[in-house]
């Protein structure tokens, strides 16, 4: 059952991603993107990362994509942008590069469990134990506020920069 669900979600994720780049209409591109993000949330659920899945749906598929949709509709693009869409050689190069990268990823998948590196990652058992001890939120929050506390604080500065910058650039009167 899990295997079947995995392939369903994986297929919709990849199909949605293709839809994003192949659609000429930005609104349909965006809706495909919502589909991709929702499928990723499904994959997270299959990995028992329920909290991550919920955040993925609420923040990405929900809030951010709706914001995107508003912006696209408010901009009222019309059809002027169509001439600027790359076709032919540009598209071929893009797909060739993406295909090459996909090839590398797939080629590395074979025999992945036997490699010494696979031992480096904590297996499902370790994860289960961690979840039993700390719960899903604790398992994310604990490293966030201990090991990665510097990164966490730096994100605060990054957001401050973005906020100040956005206000300076978008303010009505100067």
């Amino acid at each position: 059952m899990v295997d079947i669900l995995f392939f369903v979600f994986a297929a919709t994720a990849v199909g949605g991603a293709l839809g994003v780049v192949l659609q000429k209409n930005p609104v349909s591109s965006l809706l495909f993107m919502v589909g991709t993000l929702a499928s990723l949330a499904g994959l997270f659920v299959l990995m028992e990362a329920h909290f991550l899945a919920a955040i993925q749906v609420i923040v990405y598929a929900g809030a951010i994509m709706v914001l995107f949709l508003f912006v696209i509709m408010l901009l009222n693009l019309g059809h002027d942008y169509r001439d600027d869409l790359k076709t032919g050689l540009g598209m071929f190069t893009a797909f060739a590069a993406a295909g090459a990268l996909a090839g590398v990823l797939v080629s590395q998948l074979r025999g992945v469990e036997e490699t010494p590196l696979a031992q480096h990652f904590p297996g499902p058992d370790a994860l289960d134990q961690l979840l039993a001890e700390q719960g899903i939120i604790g398992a994310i929050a604990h490293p966030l506020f201990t090991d990665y506390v510097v990164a966490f604080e730096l994100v605060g500065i990054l957001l401050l920069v973005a906020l100040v910058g956005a206000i300076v650039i978008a303010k009505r009167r100067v």
Partner: protein
Amino acid sequence: MTLDFVSNVDYIWALLPEIVLSVWAMVVLLAGVRRPDDPPANTAALGWLALVGILVAAVANGWLYGVTSTADAAMITVDPFRLFANWVFLLGAGLTVLVAGPYVTRQRLQAGEFYTLILLATVGMMFMGGTRNLILLFLALETMSIAAYVLTAYNRRDRKSAEAGLKYFILGSFSSGFLLYGIALVWGATGSVHLTEIAAVVEAGAGFTGLLLAGMALLGIGFAFKVGAVPFHMWAPDAYEGAPSPSTAFMAAAVKAASFVAFLRVFLEAFPTLYESWYPVVWWLAVLTMVVANLIALTQANVKRMLAYSSVAHGGYLLVAVAAANEMATAGLLFYLLVYTVMTVGAFAILMIVSGQSEDRLQVEDYAGFGWAQPVLAVVFTIFLLSLAGFPGTGGFMAKIYILQGAVESQLWMLAVILALATVVSYYYYLRVAWYMWMRSAAAGNDHARVWTPLPVWLALILSAGVILYLGVLPSGLLDGAMTSAQGLGVVRDGLLGLRP
């Protein structure tokens, strides 16, 4: 003081300069809140306030020399390389703040936010130079880049500034995407985002080679964008030309320096064993950057655009140091970055005060006869131009010598020859401006007499010119510092004579 990072409190000490600067940036932001009818004297005071913050951060940075860290795996490193890089960033930010003051007042820009963004961008740079963790590196790079995008588009009354900001933003975010994907693939290949651990896994041969090479390639593309290497330089001339001049000085000097510091640290600390795979790519990037940028700069009649291409060309010289990848080259890169920061900010400062209120005096013809009308300014500008060209007796010359020495130590003969030839070509476009200043008589109705230099700009110019001349004559003190800072940042390898492309 010894830090072991068992307790997170240690991070407060290890990050003291960054913390001081971030807090100060917020103080400047709050102090910058003012009514629209306030007198302009307040904006000048904000500049001095920001400068004090940079000086306090510099003191904290000096204090860090007495601190040792025993934890290699910590998020932040306390090594002389980081501290030296911090000097470069703080110097660049300080000089930018000094020269920006009159410009900000003249163009009626939002002073508080301007200085805040400069300080926070500097915080981002200091993190970039000081971390071995790729996640932190990416966040720091984004902090710096987003501040730089905003500083580019800062002059909202100027269409060119907005266009430059948009171009820089789109291409910059695109390149950040490459970098992030590269980080993800490297993590997938080695199971770590920490440079020393990545190096250990790679050396043991435990990583996935294909994935690792793909990740390394994407990281390289991301960094090549950020340092503006040909063929990833398309954003640079437009962004540099359209941005307000103080922002251009800051971007061309400090932002580029930070990208190079991070580039060097990632490739030398994480992938030293893969040197044979990545150095040919850097080799070609360096050659293309030096040749193409110098050739295009030859044809520029607009001095700001010429300096933009010259900045790209200097990126090529610095890439030679990355390709050479030995301690001498790393020390040369640090030395070069310091000299380059000083001379670039100085040159853009002169450009800024000559170009006038409406920024329309940017053509090389506008400098005709400038030397005899404003001798002191012209002499200082000539010093900057000669240093940028790499004329003996200036800091720029010594910096190029050290990079050449590094290239020769790695037996990159071709690269050394191309660097020397490119430098000779660059003499033409730098000296052309000097020639116009001193050898051509001024056109009728010129505005040379009206060029007025405010006190902070004088301070920055005299300081920069002094540093350049001092380093041109007595470089050994700074070089010793750079050599100590470069310790351990080189690829150790056996004789490779004849293996160069």
